[in-house]
């Protein structure tokens, strides 16, 4: 009786997953197909296929350089925010100290307050110290929301780790640094994976702060993309789609690479798979 209900439930879930995946793939496909289409009106498929939108976009936005810059910036942001965010999250998860709510608020604010308010003064500060206009300026500006993001996100993951395992590492001579390297980070891999992936996606898509602090040679892909979508003037949908596809690929690569090498499920679950 109830197991029939359970089966129904499971079927429903899988049905939804299939529904979701099919529609998302179809949606992506329309964009991909369109980006290769010459002209697509009122029919199942475009009239003919071409590469010209890619070629044009590539040339117009000097995408080679832009992609390289984007990767560098995203890489640096992700790395730095993990490096300083995870330890901070660790402290917040493990210790109760006076003023902790205030610190939490400090980390929440950059996520809550839209960049409109602080983007310009932040850029001013960065221009004053001579960082804006360079790649580092963009990296630092992007760190302002990603560091707190990483901190907040990592807290529950750290709480899940058994402090006794940490205790063991300390007893056997691991100081905080090596505790992180040898024990915490490997155990936190799923959380760090999620945090870095999401931080990367956010950096790549952070238009406002990037634009405000980027110089002519430190613009990232999203600036070009937004330009092609929102700037005045006529632009073929196919060309926008081509840009969007390039944008997607630029993050998709990392997602696939990351999930290829890192398992999003934690070690406990992997070792002790529940009953078949």
């Amino acid at each position, binding site marked *: 009786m109830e197991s029939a209900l359970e089966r129904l439930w499971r079927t429903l879930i899988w049905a939804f997953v299939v529904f979701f995946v099919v529609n998302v793939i179809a949606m992506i496909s329309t*964009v991909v197909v369109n980006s290769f289409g010459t002209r697509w009106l009122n029919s199942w498929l475009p009239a003919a296929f071409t590469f010209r939108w890619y070629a044009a976009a590539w040339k117009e936005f000097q995408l080679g350089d832009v992609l390289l810059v984007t990767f560098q910036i995203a890489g640096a942001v992700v790395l730095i925010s993990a490096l300083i965010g995870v330890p901070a999250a660790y402290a917040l998860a493990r210790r109760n100290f006076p003023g902790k709510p205030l610190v939490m608020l400090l980390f929440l604010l950059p996520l809550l307050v839209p960049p409109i308010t602080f983007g310009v003064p932040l850029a001013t500060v960065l221009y004053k110290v001579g960082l804006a206009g360079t790649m580092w300026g963009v990296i630092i500006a992007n*760190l302002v929301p990603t560091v707190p993001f990483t901190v907040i996100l990592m807290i529950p*993951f750290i*709480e899940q780790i058994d402090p006794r395992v940490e205790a063991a590492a300390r007893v056997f001579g691991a100081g905080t640094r090596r505790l992180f390297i040898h024990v915490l980070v490997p155990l936190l891999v799923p959380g760090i994976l999620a945090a870095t992936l*999401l931080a990367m996606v956010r950096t790549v898509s952070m238009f406002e702060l990037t634009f405000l602090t980027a110089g002519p040679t430190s613009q990232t892909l999203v600036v070009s993309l937004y330009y092609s979508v929102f700037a005045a003037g006529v632009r073929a949908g196919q060309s926008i789609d081509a840009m969007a596809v390039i944008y997607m690929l630029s993050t998709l690569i990392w997602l696939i690479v990351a*999930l290829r090498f890192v398992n999003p499920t934690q070690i406990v679950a992997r070792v002790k798979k529940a009953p078949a």
Partner: protein
Amino acid sequence: MTAPPARRPTLADRGIDGVTLLVLPAALFVVLLFVYPFLYGLLLSFAPKEGGLLGNYTRFFSDPYMYGTIWLTLRLALPVTLLNIALSVPIAMQVRHMKHQRLLTTILVLPITLGTVLVAEGLLNYLGPQGWLNRTLILFGLIERPIRLVHNYWGVFISLVITGFPFTFLLTLSMISGIDPALEQAAATLGARARQRFRHIVLPLIVPGLAVTFCLAFVDAFSVFPSAVMLGAPAGETRVISFAAAQAAFEQYDYSYASAIAMIMAVVQFGFVGLVLTLRGLFYKGPAGGGKG
């Protein structure tokens, strides 16, 4: 033998030790680079083009077209966030046992890479009157005329689900897999069925994680902007608050008013996030293992 010195409460007793100091780099970074610009924006919001200190705020709250955006935004952000979490949890519960888990995970997480533009373009095409979806439905005779799924509330809603679901799913999956399977096994031997195991074991243990997930996802959804413009009706039912702020800043070039709106936005979000994080404090937070090993 010398008498040991009397013990005074040390910093460590109050929770301040080397580990606590790890919070410093991040905190310093935020203080240095965020606090000043933020205060600047905050002060700016109290220096309206016209009116007294609170001019911008009274202006906002005396104009239903403006304060209505809060409701319009909440109407999008809350259901979407809750739906995404509600979908993520059962799916993650299923996926974690799977053999080809990585492949499926990759596919499910994939939409976070799409970017708002691709999603908007894709939905406009796919769900549009001549899109594949409507065509298919018409082909099979399920509908007669194309149904309208974009340029309204649902267009934005769908896009938020597509970009938001992978986010919550990835977090939920990683969090659920942190629970020692032995706990569920123990519950099973005590007669708990799958639903009860979920309700009594898994759910309470991931609530703290879900709370954080909710906060981050909610904040994301609440500040929805490009897709509200591209897929919604930005003058109408998807006139979200960040759109109002952007209008003030970029159309009316009233940065002071824009700052004020953004501050209001932050306060509203904080209302929810603060509440959720406070509630989170009431739950068990700690290792999700059951004893030895």
